[in-house]
């Protein structure tokens, strides 16, 4: 017998509790990433090169190196300065930092992809820079930004199992502990996989919905025609 | 009467609820040059695309050289053609497109050799000789090693003509072949088509907006309107003495713009 349903029901409550931790880590990490990404994007788009160039370098550095090492780095380095972070906090900071670098590129692309002509037309209409940004640029930048951020939310969600490496009791770690106790890995690890698959597919469908809705309501406010 | 080279027998083409071609009947004799004119949306390009099997037809049968193209005989009945049959009969037809559709990753010469080698099974040497000869015929002997992006629109279109001819088709289809060209490049392409008409035994079917060329070159002009042939006849009849009000309106609108 490869698959034992009794064992599945036995471990289900523990896995469900662990999935709450996974979702918490995802949401907190993404909140940090979204805010940090915006800050990095603004710094990188700065006209002052001593701000924009180092920011670009930092973003590239974070994006080109493994998030697992970044997790270790933050988890092990802070104690050297006397700050002992709980594993969960260190993990959330590392994920937020890594995906913040990705998110900053999303914001930047979204803002820069609004055609120059839009700024020029606004100048020709004598709109102030603030009004131009609020009424002309942002509404056009949001439809491409939101689904792209959504994709990174899903990507971050799928990276949370890495927190098991610093012993955060999220889904993967729980599954591994269960597996090592019973020497049955099939059920816990397969269930974790199924959980991620279902959540990702649901999230992908939601993102598509939001994308369609945004395109309709922000790009042509007249709605369906 | 000889077998028509191309025959549309009650052919209908629909896109969803929209009927683009409505029970088309058209016979084209061997070596005949037919120009198709008409306003956009009249279904004229669809005629060529159906004959090239780029569009499936919804009703009727298309024959090429006496043989059904869209259908085949099976147990004494006409059934929709399979891929093998399509490929055999389609070998009689060549097509030149509005946007050239040259293969951008191949030189002019390679563009003309690709299908002869891999479809007809010619040796590289034979194919190269044939391609070089055709490129010479269209006046591009010195450009044979150029890639499409190194050629002007008119030169690209002439390569496309050579590429189609390399397959030795009996019927050539020209789909608005000068519409994407700058005005000063139109002449060189039309000259090649004129030369083809004189020197080769080819049945030609062209959709065109060049009324002057249609008048001078075609044996017959078909005016399409609303998915049907509204009027057809010799160039003199159509251009100098149109019977239908719609033909008159179309021609005067085109001449005014031109």
């Amino acid at each position, binding site marked *: 017998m490869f698959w034992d349903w009794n064992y599945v029901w036995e471990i289900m409550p523990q896995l469900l509790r662990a999935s709450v931790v996974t979702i918490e880590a995802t949401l907190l990490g993404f909140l940090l990433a979204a805010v940090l990404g915006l800050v990095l994007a603004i710094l990188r788009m700065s006209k002052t090169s001593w701000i924009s160039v180092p920011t670009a370098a930092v973003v590239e550095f974070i994006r080109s190196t493994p998030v697992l090492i970044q997790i270790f780095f933050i988890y092990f380095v802070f104690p050297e300065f006397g700050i002992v972070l709980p594993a969960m906090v260190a993990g959330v900071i590392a994920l937020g930092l890594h995906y913040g670098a990705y998110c900053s590129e999303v914001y930047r692309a979204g803002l820069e992809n609004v055609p120059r002509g839009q700024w020029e037309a606004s100048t020709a209409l004598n709109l102030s820079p603030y009004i131009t940004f609020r009424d002309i640029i942002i509404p056009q930048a949001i439809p491409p930004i939101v689904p792209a951020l959504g994709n990174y939310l899903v990507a971050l969600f799928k990276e949370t199992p890495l927190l098991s490496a610093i012993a955060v009791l999220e889904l993967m770690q729980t599954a591994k502990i269960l597996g090592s106790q019973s020497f049955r890995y099939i059920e816990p690890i397969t269930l974790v996989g199924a959980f991620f698959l279902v959540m990702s597919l649901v999230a992908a469908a939601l993102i598509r919905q939001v994308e369609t809705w945004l395109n309709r309501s922000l790009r042509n406010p007249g709605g369906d025609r | 009467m000889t077998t028509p080279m191309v025959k549309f027998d009650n052919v209908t083409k629909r896109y969803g609820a929209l009927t683009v071609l409505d029970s088309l009947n058209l016979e084209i004799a061997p070596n005949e040059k037919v120009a198709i004119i008409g306003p956009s949306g009249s279904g004229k390009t669809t005629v060529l695309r159906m004959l090239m099997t780029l569009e499936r037809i919804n009703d009727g049968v298309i024959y090429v050289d006496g043989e059904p193209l869209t259908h085949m005989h099976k147990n004494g009945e006409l059934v929709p053609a399979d891929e093998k049959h399509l490929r055999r009969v389609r070998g009689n037809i060549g097509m030149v497109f509005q946007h050239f559709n040259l*293969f951008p990753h191949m030189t002019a010469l390679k563009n003309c050799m690709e299908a002869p080698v891999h479809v007809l099974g010619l040796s590289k040497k034979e194919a190269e000789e044939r391609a070089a000869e055709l490129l010479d015929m269209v006046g591009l002997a010195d450009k044979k090693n150029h890639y499409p992006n190194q050629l002007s629109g008119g030169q690209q279109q002439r390569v496309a003509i050579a590429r189609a001819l390399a397959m030795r088709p009996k019927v050539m289809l020209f789909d608005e072949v000068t519409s994407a060209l700058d005005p000063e490049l139109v002449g060189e392409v039309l000259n090649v088509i004129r030369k083809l008409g004189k020197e080769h035994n080819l049945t030609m079917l062209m959709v065109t907006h060049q009324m002057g060329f249609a008048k001078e070159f075609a044996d017959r002009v078909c005016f399409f309107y609303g998915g049907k042939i509204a009027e057809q006849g010799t160039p003199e009849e159509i251009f100098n003495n149109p019977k239908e009000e719609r033909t008159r309106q179309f021609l005067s609108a085109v001449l005014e713009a031109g």
Partner: protein
Amino acid sequence: MQLRSLTICAIVFFTAGLAVASFAGFREFIPGLLQGALITIQITIGGCILAVIMALVAAIAKMYGPWPLRWLAIAYIEVFRGTSALVQLFWLFFVLPHFGILLEPLTVAIAALGLNVGAYGAEVVRGAVAAVPRGQWEASVALNMPRNLALRRIILPQAFIAMIPPWGNLFIELLKATALVSLITISDLTFKAQQMNQTTFRTVEIFTIVLIMYLAISILITVGMRALETVAARGMARGR
């Protein structure tokens, strides 16, 4: 020009990493780190090769295959994109032995990462093939080419160039994901770093050096892909 400066960057970073390492009194660890880097590079190369093969096969099966193949390809793509790379790695490592399949950890690592990135790559291939203008297919029909000949000789070569930059990104994702193999007992760069960290507690220095080494490898990948793009684009056109 940019290529050369990037190459120089990569070399400078790598030697800087080694220099910092020796200054910080880690000379005895350099052989270990380099051994780890070698394993990381091996897994990256193996994974990339598998990923490209899987991506091509899955994309073509999804687009042109008969329905059983198409569904298999869709299932592969969705499952490997929808679950996390670490879950896949652990599944292959912990679960396969239950079915009597015992693989070397290195094989498991290459298989898991290659399959994971291959699923993303399949969408890259599909997108690039779909982006080849319709007219290219039509010209192939007009020249009476069968579909697989048109795909092989006309469509894929054109899609290939469009695929290079996104593949560059995927290869870097794969390199980053190799860090996960340290969790299944393979002594790659990350594993060595962890090991040294536990024995010396010089966390900042060790992890900084290792991050710089990863950065250097990823810059090398970028350089390689740019060079490939230049070579592939030679003579190739924008025109249709």
